[in-house]
């Protein structure tokens, strides 16, 4: 049994916080991480795993308090500037699916009256919280940006841990305007002021300098990666741009995210140069796929099928750099602008514009919108996105499924739809 399977089995058999803490402590030891890292197919894959485990270990260690839960669309530079160790329950729900724990966390959530209709990222995270698989939070910062379920399910976490006074909801206006910027800026400033009064830190703009500098560097490298991918003909089989959701959001403002994105760039550049020398023009060009929304995080065949059928995911909308550079001299306003720039908030027109531009820039032959059960913000716009892509001759497959609950879709049906779509692209 390989190391990954041993870990998986170990966690499944010992479902408690103490065991997870102990395990993360062992895994995150530098020699273990680097020895383990050698088994990965690329440097970026290695760093992704190392930094993910290290960030989890920090959140599970009481030495790194205060610990803050954050929802996905929060600017995490805020956490690093305030000295809060972030923990992302939605991302952890993806990990629980990958570890094969989701059936247990979902079952636990059901027994606590979480609705079957609730998105499984939040349902699984809530079940994991009920099972005490997550560290105890000191603060919770969430928002109503794009996702409505986070603010509500996260509030339940605050009640469970008796920290309602440390629960902060950022109300992001629907439209981008200077009035909205002012409204949001004031909220972020108030949150920072309140947290600093609780942590005893003096609120000063200098505390944002390092995190913002690193975030801007991440932004620069993420744009470089995107530019490189526009003309990339082929990809390493191990590359999956949908795996970078934690560094792109939760590690924004850290040195680790910058290192990782530099490595992604180097890996892809190296592969591109090698491809160029060896076989450009000899191989049948791959079909270029634009991926919309997320993917299933449990074991599935989707990406193997795509690769086998000579289709390459050339861009994922979750990797779109939508925000302007941050200015530490205007920290609250900068973060407000970042949040308001998110194309998943507000009118569907913003998402359509991003999708059409990505389809054009990345020369997409087709698009796949993974329609995750219960995700209103994404699924609500599926039809209009499909219609708009059709106007520029890009066929779209709306693939119904579930990112976390493997029992909520049939692998056979997913496979048939996917293969049928590939046959259409090849016809």
């Amino acid at each position: 049994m390989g190391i990954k399977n041993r870990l998986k089995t170990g966690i499944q058999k010992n479902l408690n916080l103490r065991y997870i803490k102990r395990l993360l402590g062992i895994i995150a030891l530098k020699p273990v991480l680097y020895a383990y890292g050698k088994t990965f197919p690329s440097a970026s894959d290695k760093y992704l795993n190392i930094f993910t485990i290290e960030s989890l270990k920090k959140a599970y260690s009481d030495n790194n308090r205060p610990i803050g839960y954050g929802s996905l669309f929060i600017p995490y530079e805020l956490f690093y500037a305030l000295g809060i160790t972030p923990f992302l329950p939605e991302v952890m729900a993806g990990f629980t699916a990958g570890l094969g724990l989701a059936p247990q966390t979902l079952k636990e959530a059901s027994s606590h009256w979480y609705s079957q209709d609730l998105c499984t990222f939040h349902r699984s995270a809530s079940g994991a919280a009920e099972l005490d698989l997550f560290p105890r939070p000191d603060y919770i910062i969430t928002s109503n940006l794009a996702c409505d379920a986070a603010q509500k399910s996260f509030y339940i976490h605050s009640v469970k841990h008796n920290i309602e006074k440390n629960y902060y909801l950022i109300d992001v206006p629907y439209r981008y305007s200077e009035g909205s910027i002012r409204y949001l800026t004031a909220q972020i400033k108030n949150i920072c002021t309140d947290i600093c009064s609780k942590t005893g830190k003096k609120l000063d703009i200098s505390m944002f300098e390092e995190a913002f500098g690193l975030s801007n560097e991440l932004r620069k490298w993420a744009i470089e990666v995107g530019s490189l991918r526009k003309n990339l003909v082929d990809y390493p089989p191990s590359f999956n741009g949908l795996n970078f959701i934690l560094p792109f959001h939760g590690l924004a403002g850290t040195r680790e995210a910058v290192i990782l994105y530099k490595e992604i760039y180097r890996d892809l550049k190296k592969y591109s140069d090698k491809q160029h020398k060896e076989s450009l023009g000899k191989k049948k060009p791959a079909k270029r796929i634009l991926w919309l929304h997320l993917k299933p995080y449990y074991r599935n065949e989707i990406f193997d099928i795509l690769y086998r059928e000579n289709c390459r995911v050339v861009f994922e909308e979750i990797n779109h750099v939508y925000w302007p550079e941050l200015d530490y001299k205007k920290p609250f306003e900068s973060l407000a602008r970042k949040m308001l720039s998110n194309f998943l908030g507000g009118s569907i027109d913003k998402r359509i514009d991003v999708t059409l531009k990505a389809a054009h820039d990345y020369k997409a032959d087709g698009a796949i919108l993974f329609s995750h059960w219960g995700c209103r913000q994404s699924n609500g716009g599926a039809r209009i996105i499909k219609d708009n892509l059709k106007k520029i001759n890009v066929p779209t497959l709306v693939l119904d499924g579930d990112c976390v609950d493997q029992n909520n879709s049939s692998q056979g049906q997913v496979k048939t739809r996917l293969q049928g779509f590939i046959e259409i692209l090849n016809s």
Partner: protein
Amino acid sequence: MYTCGIDVGSVSTEVVILDNKNKIVSYVIALTGSNSKNAAKAAFESSLKKAGLKESEIKSIVATGYGRINIPFANKNITEISCHARGAISLFPDLKTVIDIGGQDSKVIKLEGGNPIDFLMNDKCAAGTGRFLEVMAKALEINLEDFTPIFNRTSDKVDITSTCTVFAESEIVSLIGHGVDKNKIIKGLIYSIADRITTMVERVGLEEPVCMTGGVAKNMGVVRALEEKLGVKLNIPDEPQITGALGAAYLARDLH
């Protein structure tokens, strides 16, 4: 040169052998049962026997349907979307829309220039499929073959509100318990399938000419209800159940 298409569905397995002049030399429709691999092999052998051919005379075989990946003697597997489209186009060359209702699967395929450009399949629920009708026939203790004459002679219907097969069965049992005329229930059931399929067709976008394939296309009650709901005339193949296998046999020819 002969080619063969095998459509392994959840309920039935169909085999078509085609000669080089596009003539169907034999076809077989058999129950799939619990072992789809064995069912495919048996149906293939039976079709060879009917055609008076040896296996070595079959140039290539394409498998389709949910059991397509489990046919070791097939040269290639292709989804039922492409196969139904190709089969239907071979029968009605100008088609724009194909509606296929099989045992546990219903799909709508949109065509352009004879090629599929979009499709929609039912989700994991079997409502609106042949299995739905079978379960209801059992609950009503009426032969499925009698549904069409009952549909034709009954003027009124009772709306069946449940889409889930299990809930619809309970609803029917309850209606029978309340003394509702079984004929009206049957008419209501047929319209409930037509409603469900109409929604799927509207999502993909209705364009004429339209063809209906699959075993349920043999039920003229469902065909009429669908024609009424969609407001179009449906083209029905002489043997609608073998359309997927026929398309697979055509696509097997393209392998050379």
